[in-house]
Each structure stands twice: as C-alpha cells, then as structure tokens.
C-alpha cells in the first residue's frame, strides 16, 4: 500500500488530503502516477497534471516526471510552495 498526499490546491481538487491505495505494478514513474490519478478523477485531472504541481517520493523532491515510484511508501503532490 502507498500513501498519496495532496497539498495546497491539489487537496481541494482531490477532495481530501490523503489516500492510501495499492498502486498498479505497471506504474513506474511519477508521471505514470499523475496520469493514473487523472484518469480516476475528472476534478483532480487538470490540477494533478499541471506542471506547477511538484511531486516528492518518500520525502525527496522529484527532479521530474521520469523519477521512479517503484516500492514508494509515500508520494506527495504539491501546488506551489509558499512559506514566509
């Protein structure tokens, strides 16, 4: 099972801040997970596919959508960060 976390505007679009799910084994990259989530949820689709939404896998920022998610325990999707 993998925890998928949604932050910022992504959580609004997902309607929740977190889901725990079995990710199909054929999904190998962050980009694959985005596409899979988009296909499951029309409201989430435009947001999760936005290039401004960054991902982190097991608490490490991804450098791009080709980053691997195999055996990930936690994948986070984040709208633009804004501290301070």
């Amino acid at each position: 099972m993998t925890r998928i976390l949604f932050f910022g505007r992504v959580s609004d679009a997902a309607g929740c801040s977190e889901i725990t799910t079995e990710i199909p084994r054929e999904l190998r990259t962050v980009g694959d997970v985005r596409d899979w989530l988009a296909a499951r949820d029309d409201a989430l689709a435009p947001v999760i596919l936005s290039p401004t939404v960054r991902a982190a896998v097991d608490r490490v920022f991804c450098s791009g959508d080709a980053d691997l998610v195999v055996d990930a325990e936690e994948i986070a999707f984040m709208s633009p960060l804004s501290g301070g």
Partner: protein
Amino acid sequence: MRVTVKDASFSVDAELSNFSQARTDSVGALATFVGYCRSESATGGVESLHLDHYPGFTEVEVARLARAVVERHHLIDLLVVHRTGAVTPREPIVLVAALAEHRAEALAAVAELMDYLKTDAPFWKREMNGGQSRWIEPTEADRARRAARGD
C-alpha cells in the same frame, strides 16, 4: 542553528531575546525579519491565514535551506521560527534572525532565506474570509527574486 516549525503562537520578543543573548564577543551584527499576518490582502479582508505543512518533510526542508544560508554567508548563528495552523491578523508567521561578524553577511542572509522560504519551503497558505478560503501562492515578484538567486 535552531529551526522550529510549530502550530502555536510564539513570542517574537522572547525568541529574539534568547537568541541574541547567547551571542559571542565576535558577533558584530544581528539582522532579523518578522512576517506578520495582515488584516488586509491584495484581494480583501483577512480573518485568518491557515498554513498547511508536510509534517516530517517541512522541518527537514526548512533546515536544509537554513543550513545553506549559514554556510553561504558565514553566519555565527541562525534562528528560524515558522508557524503552521491558523494565524490571525497581527500574529507573527515567521521569524528569521542571523548573527554574523559583519552587517553585510547578516542582512544578505536574512533577505535570501526569506526569498527561499517564499518559494521553496513546503508550506501552503490559505486566506480565510467569510467562510471562503483562497490559496496564496508565490507572486511574480517572489518568483523573480528567487530566480535571481540561482540555484
């Protein structure tokens, strides 16, 4: 270096007083910045701000940004306190304080860390007003300042 991310009000006076009293004789400069919640934003009144974070990740990322600034500006010490949760107008959101031998280092460190916090720290801010919530994302100016700093 001390970095705190917390879901409770903090006293800027007490934090700064503790931090600056522990300084050594070689400290010639203290620069600080405090960001407060305002009662008005670009889009209207603000009843409160709500700051979400990513527990276990935000703390690590803020510490990483802070450490980079300490090294780049040869700071003697650095303090960062950042709120999460509900913040009401007049309350502090963030406090950054840098101790250095000379003023240029302390001032540059504080300005730089604030730029990084605005765009690179895992926080998400919502303005709450009349039951409505609006996400606050970095402005063009924030992004431009961050871009000017390179990577």
